[in-house]
């Protein structure tokens, strides 16, 4: 199952912010994500470490272990109870097609390492590596980001980042009878549960590569506000299809069948992101974000987010926010079982559909003492397709 992997660019952004307040700390966090309708549930403990070596070098490491259970909707066949017609044994017992939850379980381990070098003029170079592994998916990402102050007052900086992700996906193999996870009595997706590399022939390996480029400008506007503008491009090539999704083809004919979905093997995306931070008095800060994304799959999205943080006391900070997201559908997406015939590209994956979503957020950060702080966050997500989700995060940070 391909999960949303950590974007190294996002991690770099966080790490840049943290390095301004260079310090050593250890974090322990726990995330619990639950979707409605018995869909996906994720439990993810994670550990983080930030360590300064002198004043010019910082190392950050993170590790997360996700346990995912639940179900994802996918087109499936229902079994017929009996048959009418010709004599002879039916080999493919098919009934009708329903788009319903198919259960699965998976575990993901991911880790990242970032090394930041600060130069004399306080420019920073951060290089990183990220590794993520699930039963049918492995990803390696390498990144580099350079932040350059354009003036002595450090009111403006430019950052240029590049990352490359190299993914390996295991897809059902013909040799394995084309079994899908959850089919028949196939409790184990592969003949050998540990067989990620596909050498047993239980599955075949596909690859995809993604290059992510980002160019940004951060400008301190005045004592109380800053503005950041980023432009990004994402180029992906290789196996970009979701191997767990299916489409119904030729429904209104005798040639109807349930087949694999198929996505283009290239994807080019562009976008811009704008971030504005404003301090209101001594206790309140407002973070406003806007992001526009477009790609050659005809998906366009807009994200508008507003977060407010209120420092109740020197020990307690409360946060609240709302995010609105809207996207158009991919050109080869259709939800109906009687739409596709022989199109090259076809997908009924809800995530490629047109939808809107609202997220409501709340957070709490409490300093127990000078070294130890505790955080708690909650997000409530609602999508126009009917999907709802809650995410609870909690953790502790220890400075040393």
């Amino acid at each position, binding site marked *: 199952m391909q999960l949303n992997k950590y974007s190294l660019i996002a991690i770099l952004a966080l790490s840049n912010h943290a390095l301004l307040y260079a310090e050593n700390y250890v974090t322990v966090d726990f995330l619990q994500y639950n979707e409605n309708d018995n869909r996906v549930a994720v439990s993810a403990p994670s550990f983080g470490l930030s360590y300064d070596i002198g004043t010019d070098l910082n190392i950050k490491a993170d590790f997360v272990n996700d346990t995912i259970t639940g179900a994802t909707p996918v087109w499936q066949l*229902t*079994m*017929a*109870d*009996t*048959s*009418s*017609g*010709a*004599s*002879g*044994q*039916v*080999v*493919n*017992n*098919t*009934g*009708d097609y329903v788009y319903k939850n198919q259960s699965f379980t998976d575990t993901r381990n991911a880790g990242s390492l970032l090394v930041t070098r600060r130069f004399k003029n306080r420019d920073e170079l951060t290089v990183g590596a990220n590794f993520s592994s699930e039963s049918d998916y492995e990803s390696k990402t390498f990144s580099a980001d350079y932040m350059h102050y354009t003036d002595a007052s450090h009111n403006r900086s430019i950052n240029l980042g590049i990352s490359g992700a190299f993914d390996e996906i295991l897809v059902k193999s013909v040799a394995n009878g084309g079994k899908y996870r959850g089919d028949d009595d196939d409790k184990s997706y592969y003949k050998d549960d540990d067989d990620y590399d596909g050498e047993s022939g239980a599955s075949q390996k596909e690859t995809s590569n993604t290059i992510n480029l980002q160019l940004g400008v951060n400008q301190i506007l005045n004592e109380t506000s800053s503005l950041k503008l980023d432009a990004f491009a994402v180029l992906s090539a290789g196996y970009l299809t979701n191997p767990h999704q299916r489409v119904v083809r030729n429904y*209104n*004919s*005798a*040639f*109807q069948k349930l087949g694999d979905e198929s996505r283009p093997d290239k994807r080019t995306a562009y976008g811009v992101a704008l971030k504005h931070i404003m301090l209101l008095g001594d206790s309140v800060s407002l973070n406003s974000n806007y992001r526009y994304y477009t790609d050659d799959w005809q998906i366009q999205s807009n994200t508008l987010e507003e977060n407010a943080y209120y420092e109740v006391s020197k020990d307690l900070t409360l946060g609240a926010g709302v995010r609105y997201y809207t996207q158009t559908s991919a050109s080869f997406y259709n939800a109906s079982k009687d739409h596709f015939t022989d199109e090259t590209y076809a997908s009924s994956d809800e995530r490629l559909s047109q939808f809107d979503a609202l997220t409501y957020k709340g957070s709490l950060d409490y300093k127990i003492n000078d070294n130890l702080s505790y955080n708690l966050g909650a997000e409530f997500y609602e999508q126009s397709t009917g999907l709802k989700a809650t995410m609870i995060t909690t953790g502790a940070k220890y400075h040393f």
Partner: protein
Amino acid sequence: MTSPCEVHIYAQNKSHCDEVAKKILLMAKGLEQKYNFYDPNSYLWALNQRKSNALDAQTKDLLSRAKLFYTQTKGIFDITAGTLTQSRKLPTLDEVEKEMKRLEPFVGVEHFKIKKNKLIFDNPHTLIDLGGFVKEYAVDLAVKILKKEKILSALVNFGGDIYALGLKPNGEKFSIGIKNPKNPQAYITSLKISNEALTTSASYERKHQVEGKVYSHIISTQELQNKIISATVIASTTVEAGVFSTAFMIDPKLETSLKRVLINEKLEVL
């Protein structure tokens, strides 16, 4: 019966289910032997060979319904089409065609009457073949047994002639897969039924070939039209469904309010 038969009974008491299943099996075997067109020991053989003309209540009922179906299907469903059966086994096309021409005047339900529990033919050649609906009749009798035994959920399938009694234990209707006439190992579509009968007729199997000309097992005085190769009908009784699924193979435009699924040569589901 030369087709595989199955009965699925859903109830709490297994031994009761076993008993009911045995009753159905006994009834089906009895019908099979009684109305076997080809068996010289069968009751039907005796009637056809004019060795007996006494009709029991069951046979009288069957023959009366057959006459009614003859009218409803405008002569397509005809139990006297069996008069032509033997002619198709002649070795040459010429002999087949000649014999069929000779016997054709004796085909038609008007050639027999039912008078006071007696079967009366008006000629020595007309033969009655109940093969066209005795299997479906057996399904309906099986359902009668199930209901009498207070079974609320069951699925009876005698060679593709089906009755779904009640709902499945999970509360859903029974799903019936309709086989692809050009690839019977796979389904072409499926239908959901409850307290209904479903039968399918097709011209793709049990064909008989003489000098390259193919004769379908669907015996009718009328030529099979070439457009529909499979007809599925849903009705309240299996006999009615079976009669009309056969009739649709001859005339797909037959007027009836029964639900149907017809498949043409291009494998389009109509």
